[in-house]
């Protein structure tokens, strides 16, 4: 479902920039194409410009530069109420002076829909989020999770083409959040709507999305399906932000083959303790340039046959986690090197203080931009 | 030992302070009027008796008396009030009686009772000045020269707005005089329903051109600003604006209404004895004559008249500016307090109803 061809894009940001104060750019040259029916998440730390992007799409903020298109048509000059975009706010924004039913009826009313049709749609939308019995309650009489469902139902009841959600689950506790993630995903699939979702919670982004756009400082650092994002981070920021990573700073000393193109080749990196290791060149310069080698903890083995990336390591700490044991080791002078050892037959049983050997494949070590 | 010494020093100091702090609080109308009293009464009084005079101003010093006396929390020793207020307050038992024998005789020995103008000494009040409600005009804004009270009510001859005090008193009398009623018949006619109708009918003729004022400081301001071309006013205020501030204002004495201002002592005044002393001092022949050199209000004693001299600028003869000057009395009305105490409520109701119409 990944988008490559902008011709089929349903929602499209085309070189969009945004500045609030005329001095700093909050969104820098944003290009993003979203296909119809896709679930795209904007993931990034707080203040990275995610909400701003969403607000520009909804029409509450104007883009300082660039164009936003919906269904191929520029919507820069279309006021929010004519965009037909549903929105779920982090604070839910349920109208406190209206009942749940009235809240849901509101978008239909302003569209001039007849009473009986309205009632039917409201009922269907409420049933859809399993809140059929609550039509006469006021928002204040509902729990957080219930309010969340109502906000969702309200954003969907008028059958918008696109639904935007800005950290919709941020105020819920963990269990409820996971449950709602599942429900939202389910609704997305059954209704076939396009969803643009904002969160700063990476596991939420990874579990729900077709594709994730990782934001940092007003820029998309990587736009990829969750698996790619985890397995193949394209730069240090993404590697750090998504999941856990071991970092080994060093300098590229050689690349296999000729030096015309670095990406996809195996690079030899000289680490800070003087040892060398091999890594897949993803985002590093030619020989002589600084780099950061990044390895996922679960890709490091303590029992494998020695290879080019084998080295000795001292066990510093062990944490028993049931299905696996988390080991902190000193590797190449890095005290924070973590390895996850499956708690299964055939895996070595480590003891604190002992010296062992760790090994990883060159393909699993990614030479990225230095931090 | 040392402690005792300090204590006694402190005590004697305190006692000394207490005697030095003999005082009397006098409430008056503010502005140039209070100033004239401070110069002519307060300062010489303190110089002679060492009693400090605290001067307090109010829009109408009669106003707080009832509330203070009823609440048993009197802070004023002497108040300068209008005639009808003095009578009414006295009736309600809110004032101390003043024995006329405490008032000093005239320099030639005439007893005070004989020296004061008729009506100036009442059971609970002693008059200090004769003031009057006159009308005045702004020379720069009026074409021609108004000379009679009839001109005030003639907007055909003298177009422009008129300022009038928002009260039935004086307004109705002036309306009748403008309608041709001689001064000595005014209250007789005003005592009849037809007379009241006649007064209001006369007021009707200029109603749309009236700007109403309430505080004595307003008319000179209204005249100076050009808001009105003529206005009724207290004669002293106009004098002050015209002479001290050189405003182009002129008083018309025809149809003036004379009134007393009197000193009264609220019941339960904290410094009653000092208040008596103050009143005796302030209403002496010399004090009253002195006051007249600061503001153009007439002294309430006959013997003071001869002593009235120049205004403080040293070049304006005060005598012709006094309401009591012979030339100014040709068509003058003396306010009948008894009439107003009787009819105040009724006529003010009618007046307010007429205003609201």
């Amino acid at each position, binding site marked *: 479902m990944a988008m490559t061809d902008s011709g089929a894009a349903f929602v499209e940001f085309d070189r969009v920039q945004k500045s609030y104060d005329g001095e700093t750019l909050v969104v820098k040259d944003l290009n993003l194409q979203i296909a119809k029916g896709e679930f795209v998440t904007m993931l990034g730390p707080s203040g990275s410009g995610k909400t701003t992007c969403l607000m520009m799409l*909804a*029409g*509450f903020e104007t883009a300082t530069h660039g164009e936003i298109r919906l269904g191929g048509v520029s919507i820069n000059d279309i*006021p929010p*109420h004519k*965009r*037909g*975009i*549903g*929105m779920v*706010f982090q*604070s839910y*924004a349920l*109208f*406190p*002076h209206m009942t749940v039913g009235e809240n849901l009826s*509101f*978008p239909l009313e*302003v*569209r001039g829909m007849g009473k009986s049709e309205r009632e039917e749609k409201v009922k269907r939308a409420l049933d859809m989020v399993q809140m059929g019995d609550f039509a006469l309650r006021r928002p204040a009489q509902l729990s957080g999770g219930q309010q969340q469902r109502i906000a969702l139902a*309200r954003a969907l009841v*008028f059958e918008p083409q696109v639904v935007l959600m800005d950290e919709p689950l941020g105020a819920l506790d963990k269990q409820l959040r996971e449950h709602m993630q599942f429900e939202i995903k389910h609704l997305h699939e059954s209704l076939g709507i396009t969803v643009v979702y904002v969160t700063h919670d990476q596991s939420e982004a990874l579990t729900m999305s077709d594709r994730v756009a990782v934001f940092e400082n007003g820029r998309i650092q990587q736009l990829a399906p969750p698996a790619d994002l985890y397995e193949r981070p394209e730069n240090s920021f993404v590697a750090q932000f998504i999941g856990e990573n071991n970092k080994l700073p060093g300098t590229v000393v050689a690349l296999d083959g000729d030096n015309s193109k670095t990406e996809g080749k195996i690079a030899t990196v000289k680490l800070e303790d003087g040892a060398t290791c091999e890594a897949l060149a993803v985002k590093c310069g030619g020989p002589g340039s600084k780099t950061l080698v990044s390895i996922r903890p679960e890709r490091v083995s303590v029992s494998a046959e020695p290879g080019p990336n084998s080295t000795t390591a001292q066990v510093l700490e062990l944490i028993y986690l049931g299905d696996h044991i988390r080991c902190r080791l000193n590797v190449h002078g890095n005290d924070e090197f973590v390895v996850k050892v499956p708690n299964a037959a055939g895996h070595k049983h480590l003891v604190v203080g002992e010296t062992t050997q760790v090994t990883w494949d060159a393909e699993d070590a990614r030479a990225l931009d230095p931090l | 030992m040392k402690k005792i010494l300090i204590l006694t020093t402190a005590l004697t100091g305190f006692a000394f302070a207490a005697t030095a702090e003999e005082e009397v609080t006098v409430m008056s109308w503010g502005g140039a009027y209070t100033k004239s009293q401070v110069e002519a009464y307060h300062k010489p009084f303190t110089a002679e008796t060492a009693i400090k005079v605290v001067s307090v101003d109010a829009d*109408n010093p*009669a*106003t707080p008396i009832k509330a203070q*006396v009823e609440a048993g929390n009197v802070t004023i020793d002497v108040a300068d009030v209008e005639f009808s207020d003095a*009578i*009414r307050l*006295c*009736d*309600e*038992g*809110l004032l101390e009686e003043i024995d006329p024998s405490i008032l000093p005789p005239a320099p030639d020995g005439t007893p005070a009772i004989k020296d004061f103008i008729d009506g100036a000494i009442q*059971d609970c009040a002693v008059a200090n000045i004769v003031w009057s409600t006159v009308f005045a005009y702004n020379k720069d804004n009026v074409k021609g020269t108004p000379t009679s009270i009839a001109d005030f009510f003639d907007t055909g001859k003298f177009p422009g*707005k008129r300022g009038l005090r*928002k009260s039935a008193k004086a307004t109705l009398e002036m309306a009748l005089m403008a309608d041709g009623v001689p001064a000595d018949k005014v209250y007789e006619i005003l*005592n009849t329903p037809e007379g009241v109708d006649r007064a*209001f009918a006369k007021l009707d003729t200029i*109603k749309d051109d*009236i700007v*109403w004022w*309430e505080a004595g400081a307003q008319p000179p301001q209204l005249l100076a*600003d*050009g*808001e009105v071309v003529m206005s009724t006013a207290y004669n002293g205020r106009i004098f002050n604006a015209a002479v001290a501030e050189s405003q182009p204002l002129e008083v018309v004495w025809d149809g003036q209404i004379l009134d007393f201002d009197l000193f009264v002592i609220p*019941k*339960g005044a904290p410094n009653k004895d000092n208040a008596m002393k103050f009143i005796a001092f302030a209403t002496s022949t010399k004090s009253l004559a002195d006051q007249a050199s600061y503001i153009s209000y007439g002294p309430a004693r006959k013997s003071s008249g001869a002593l009235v001299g120049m205004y403080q600028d040293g070049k304006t003869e005060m005598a012709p500016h006094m309401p009591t000057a012979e030339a100014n009395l040709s068509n003058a009305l003396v306010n009948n307090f*008894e009439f107003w*105490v*009787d*009819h*105040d*409520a*009724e006529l*003010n*109701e*009618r007046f307010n*109803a*007429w205003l*609201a119409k």
Partner: protein
Amino acid sequence: MVDATTNPTNTGLTTADGKPLKAALAHAQARSRRRAFLLVLPLLLFIVITFIVPIGQMLKRSVYNDGFTVQRNLTTGEKTPIMVNLAKWFDENPAGTEPDEAAFAALVEDLKQLKELRAAGQAGTRINYELSGSRSLFTQGARKAKKLQPPYKEALLELNPKWNDPKLWQVMRSASSNFTGTFFLAATDRTRDADGNIQSVEENRQIYLKLFWRTLKLSVLITVLTLILAYPIAHLLATLPLRYSNLLMIFVLLPFWTSLLVRTTSWMILLQSQGVLNDAMVAMGLISDGNRIQMMYNQTGTVIAMTHILLPFMVLPLYSVMRPINPSYVRAARSLGATSWTAFRRIYFPQTVPGIAAGGLLVFILAVGYYITPALVGGSDGTLISNLIAFHMQKSLNWSMAAALASLLLGGILILYWLYDRLVGIDNLKLG
């Protein structure tokens, strides 16, 4: 304990040590309640002393006046009954009895006492409230009472024929009782005729009802004007960044910090017919020099000045309800398809209603009671009922009348408040 929880049908729950649960609870709460009461006691006393007692006294004064029955020596505090002989005659003879020689004899006896006590003015003033012109009747009568010889009726009538006025006798009869509805009648432009029947006063003296009505109308107008002006200001204050909104707030509060005289002077400079506004309009050719608009010393002046003074009382409650309204409500409405007007009307406005209600009530009640401003800039048709209350308090000294007018005003406001509660609901009120 176990019993109580496991056996819900057990009627009397008990605590662990067997005391009835309800009693234990009451005991536990009684102490905290006592402490709470002690804490609010100073406030309670303060309110009783400064508020309830004076209002009670005012209400009493409006129906109670002993000016014709008791003379009070304010120095000694001693009270002497007066007009006792006449009161006795009134007791013995029913209303409507032609006053006979005995009545006049009693009257003369009482007049002599009035002279002695110097209470003629007081008694006369009380009668004068209802029958204009009778105060001098009493002072004159008391002065001459000693010299009068029987038959007293003839003697008094010779002194002044007004003594035979049946209306006078009706008023004296009603005044000889301390409790009276006269002041309420007068406050509603009504009076009693000689036979004691209630009737309207002559048309040219009817003023109070008219002024009540005008006060109501102007107060409503001022409330509406302040609302129209304050709403956008409050909205701006609530949405602007704090830095700017604080500055704006200072401008809003400025009227509070300025003395009334300074304000009055500035209104005069602005509004009078030779003032800045008129000069500007003449200069721009909007009006001719001869047709300057009168904006001062009339109703317009009152409305402008009072709107200015009372504006903050509307802005502050509005601001306090607008500030916490999350902007995402309006955004949500817009995203749901509402135009900005619909979003305002259906979503924003209803949430500000408590502020409007509070501000409206506050401004209205203050406007009803304001008297200084109308007195200064009101002119002839900008006078309000409170000006007449002030008149009776300060000038005519007829405090009973002032109290009756004030009581009516209070009653009117309470009725409006009640109506308001029925229509809007008091719980819908948010004061700051």
